[in-house]
């Protein structure tokens, strides 16, 4: 199968992106400065997102850019703030031991590549059986232009239900382990919340406009945050026609609130979105999703079978079903990302220099 010309362009771009990924990967191994490692991980997942775009995986690139390059970096920074900055270099023996293990696994995989289909081969078993079937069936059975959303929300809806439960578990986990930080009382004293040690805050005084060096950031943030929320809603409802959907929209919405809390402080954010609402939101999404499943059973169909929703026109039923579960996914993902950020950022008011 000669590689036709149009395919060559992408080979060149793929090669460049792959080489950059390798450089960043090797650098990650050698660097011990934690900050550089976290930043490089952000760049690594960004490069992966670009590679996904060049491999036609637009939805995946969207999620990887939003989640991998965005939220993960902010979370790691939050965790790094509370931990040390330098990682200890690894002792020699351990280095050789792990090199051995890694070498063996690498050889096993390398051995397997000889029977793997060529890159981009249209009639490889993977691309010619169920994958192709979805393309044909989506037109008539689900009627949603974005086939990925159709599979995600309708054919394999139970996968997505499991995934939303995984997100809820992570949110519960962080709330159980770190607590969600409690609403601050007026004088800045934070009541002792259970076992976490939340330091008491120095009194918060009013701000003189002249002293404020960050007027630029505040103004820009005031302009940007509404646009980001609007963009999140666009991504949510545009999910049927282009890349996007509940997960990406939830992450974008959460990053808008995180930007707000970065600049205007956690107290303002807690007043805007209290911790109780966030905690309730994490469970609400799963209830919407599972509730729809139970409704479809009550209406005589199987679990998450949207055709029964509107007996008249099954395609309309599919659209209604997909819309409802995307809202469920949006609510859970947004509130879980927020609860995780509340847990991390609300942990310490301010670190003294000595224990840095």
């Amino acid at each position, binding site marked *: 199968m000669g590689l036709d010309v149009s395919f060559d362009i992408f080979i060149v771009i793929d090669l460049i992106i792959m080489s950059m990924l390798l450089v960043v990967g090797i650098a990650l191994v050698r660097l011990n400065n934690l900050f550089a490692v976290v930043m490089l991980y952000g760049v690594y997942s960004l490069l992966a997102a670009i590679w996904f775009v060049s491999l036609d995986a637009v939805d995946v690139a969207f999620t990887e850019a939003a989640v991998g390059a965005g939220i993960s970096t902010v979370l790691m920074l939050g965790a790094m703030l509370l931990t040390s900055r330098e990682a200890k270099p690894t002792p020699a023996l351990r280095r050789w031991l792990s090199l051995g293990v890694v070498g063996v696994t690498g050889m096993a995989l390398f051995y397997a590549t000889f029977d793997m289909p060529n890159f981009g081969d249209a009639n490889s078993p993977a691309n010619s059986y169920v994958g192709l079937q979805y393309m044909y069936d989506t037109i008539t059975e689900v009627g949603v232009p974005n086939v990925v959303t159709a599979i995600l929300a309708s054919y394999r809806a139970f996968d997505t239900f499991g995934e939303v439960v995984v997100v809820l578990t992570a949110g519960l986990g962080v709330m159980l382990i770190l607590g969600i930080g409690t609403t601050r009382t007026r004088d800045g004293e934070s009541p002792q919340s259970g076992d976490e040690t939340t330091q008491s805050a120095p009194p918060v005084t009013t701000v003189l406009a002249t002293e404020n060096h960050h007027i630029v950031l505040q103004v*820009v943030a005031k302009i*940007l945050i509404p646009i980001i929320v609007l963009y999140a809603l666009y991504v949510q409802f545009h999910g049927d026609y282009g890349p996007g959907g509940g997960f990406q929209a939830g992450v974008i919405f959460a990053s808008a609130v995180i930007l707000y809390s970065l600049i205007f402080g956690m107290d303002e954010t807690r007043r805007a979105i209290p911790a109780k609402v966030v905690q309730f939101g994490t469970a609400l999404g799963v209830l919407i999703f599972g509730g729809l499943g139970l409704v479809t059973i009550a209406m005589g169909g199987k679990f998450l079978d949207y055709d029964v929703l509107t007996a008249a026109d099954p395609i309309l039923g599919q659209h209604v079903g997909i819309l409802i579960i995307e809202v469920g996914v949006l609510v859970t993902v947004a509130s879980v990302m927020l609860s995780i950020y509340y847990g991390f950022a609300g942990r310490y008011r301010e670190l003294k220099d000595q224990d840095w």
Partner: protein
Amino acid sequence: MIDIMPYLEILRYVLAGALLFGGAVFMIIGAVGMLRLPDFYARIHAAGITDTLATVMLIAGMMLHSGFTQTTAKLALVAIFLFLTSPTATHAVANAAHKAGLKPRLGKVQPPHPRDKMKGAK
């Protein structure tokens, strides 16, 4: 009245090409500046070029290339976001670096040129 529409069409693509190419050249200049300049504050100038001039030229070129479609609207949105965020970010980086006490390397202390060093300069 000769019909000037086809010429406009050609002009549009030529202009788009020129803008794109110009933007790319400035991008390369900015990147080389980032790599070669000795000091943080000098490098921030190099980043400045790419963030403003190159971005505007590239996006203008793409808008011309795509004519009046939904893509142009999206490109306009990208331009607005970049226009808002990158100067603010560069400002915030410079502000934080200065506050953290990173002193710019002023002209007085000339680092010995590598060639002089080899020759055992005075």
